[in-house]
């Protein structure tokens, strides 16, 4: 298979995505199939071809740095899963 179980685990860790052992087994098979399919690109001659990241001919869209009102504090916290004293509550990052 194009991708090993270890690689599946590694890629999930890079994204901080939790996967069950079942997920890992299933994804190994499905992702391998898809990655094998990607090989069709290797047959395309792209020698000297510039990459395209974007189809519009826009570059560095600038705007004036003008102050404007922000969202009300309460509106932004309204969707917070956990909050405390007007802040988002998170787990301690440092032990």
């Amino acid at each position, binding site marked *: 298979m194009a*991708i090993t179980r270890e*690689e*599946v685990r590694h*890629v*999930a860790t*890079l*994204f*901080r*995505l*939790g*996967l*069950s052992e079942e*997920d890992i087994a299933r*994804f190994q098979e*499905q*992702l391998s*199939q*898809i*990655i094998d*399919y*990607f090989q*069709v*690109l*290797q*047959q*395309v001659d*792209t020698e000297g*071809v*510039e*990459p*395209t*990241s*974007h*189809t*519009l001919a*826009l570059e560095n*869209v600038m*705007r004036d740095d003008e102050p404007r009102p922000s*969202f009300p504090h309460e*509106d*932004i916290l*309204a*969707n*917070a*899963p*956990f909050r405390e004293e007007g802040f*988002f509550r*998170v*787990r*301690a*990052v440092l032990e």
Partner: protein
Amino acid sequence: MSDRPLYDLTAHEAADLLARREVSSRQLTEAVLERIRQVEGRIEAFVTVTDELALRQADEADKRLAAGDATPTLVGVPAAIKDVICTKGVRTTCGSRMLENFVPPYNAHVTERLLQAGLVMVGKANMDEYAMGSSTENSAFHPTHNPWDLDRVPGGSSGGSAACVSAGEAFYALGSDTGGSIRQPASLCGVVGMKPTYGRVSRFGLVAFASSLDQIGPLTKDVTDCALVLNAIAGHDRRDATSAPLDAPDFTASLIPDLRGLRVGVPREYFVEGMDDGVRACIEAAVRQIEALGAEADWDISLPSTGSALACYYIIAPSEAMANLARYDGVKYGYSNMQGESMFENMERTRQYGFGDEVKRRIMLGTYALSAGYYDAYYLKAQKVRTLIRREFDDAFQRCDVLLSAVSPTPAFRLGEKTDNPLQMYLSDVCTIPVNIAGLPAVSVPCGFVDGPDGRSLPVGLHVMGKPFDEPTILRVAYAYEQATDWHKARPPL
């Protein structure tokens, strides 16, 4: 007035009745809400039905109409919005457990524009989770059923938007299209669906999937409605840095039933292996009809990189998606799982239980394609192939004004038919994906039916692809074709 039920009308027919004061927006809205009560149990096109809001907005629209303000044509005409587009104060789930209880504190640009145009919103339309899918089966809440055959999918990811318009549960809807997510469900449900040029419609307030490919567009009952909705949503918006700094023309000016002097091309690579014979016959007949309307057809256009477009897309879109979905960390909004031992473990659990399988698969593909050692082989290579795909379109458009093909190589497939095989599911977008890669506008317009094995008629859509920012010409071709046929008048047997 004819004896057709109100919910059956097109948006422009409903708008005409409103302008002539023959019906009120409240009557139209009640008719649509009643239709929803009758059929929604079978279609399941909505995540949220906003009936109270709709009636309030209808009463406001009626006041506006009474004051003589019918300038925006769509004032008071009930519509649905795909649940990936932010609606202030109305839950916007993206079809995901992750955003099941998310209530946006602001409106998307397109929502603002429709509100200014007198929006009556009857609901938020169901979709594949984060717009990832081709059948609406990836919705975390429920699948949507195709109004033409309830055992079949409506397509996706804007399956709810297409199904509700087809079933008379809304006069028009907004969808979003990253690889075919407006056009493919429009084709499978027998409605008109347009993906505008990348940059034509602001993405501000559209929950991001793949930022260089996503575009918002209309799903409607006919081409006139498509032009009207596009008029309401198109144009520059500074809050989207990729919004094109161009004034949008009046798209209804392109509704000309005459194709003389126009050159249409038929790219042969779009007649893909495994294409349904009935679909092929519909497309060939549609091209001949377009020739009969005065256009000159070139049946031998070639876009040689078409076969690589799908692989190119399934590297670029997941790579961009993975960057966009990294924001879901269980802290600021959305589902949060704090059962873990550490911050990272909480983040992992939040995503494990908040995202569905297809979203996880694409995150994994994108993370893999961008990871050390694979970047050049996958992501960079895909971006180079993207350049080739664009160039081939540019060359073809030297010879033709529009390109014609099928939208989907097959009619609607059965619910459950492709859920176990992601690659098979991906292949259903083979004709629509190149347009997103090149940033072009394209529309699906009904062009016939094929008989399903169980005797049900299944709709087929004609794909009209155009040059960047040349929506007027694809609308003209779609309109002229539509006016010469009766396919758009058919309604599903519900």
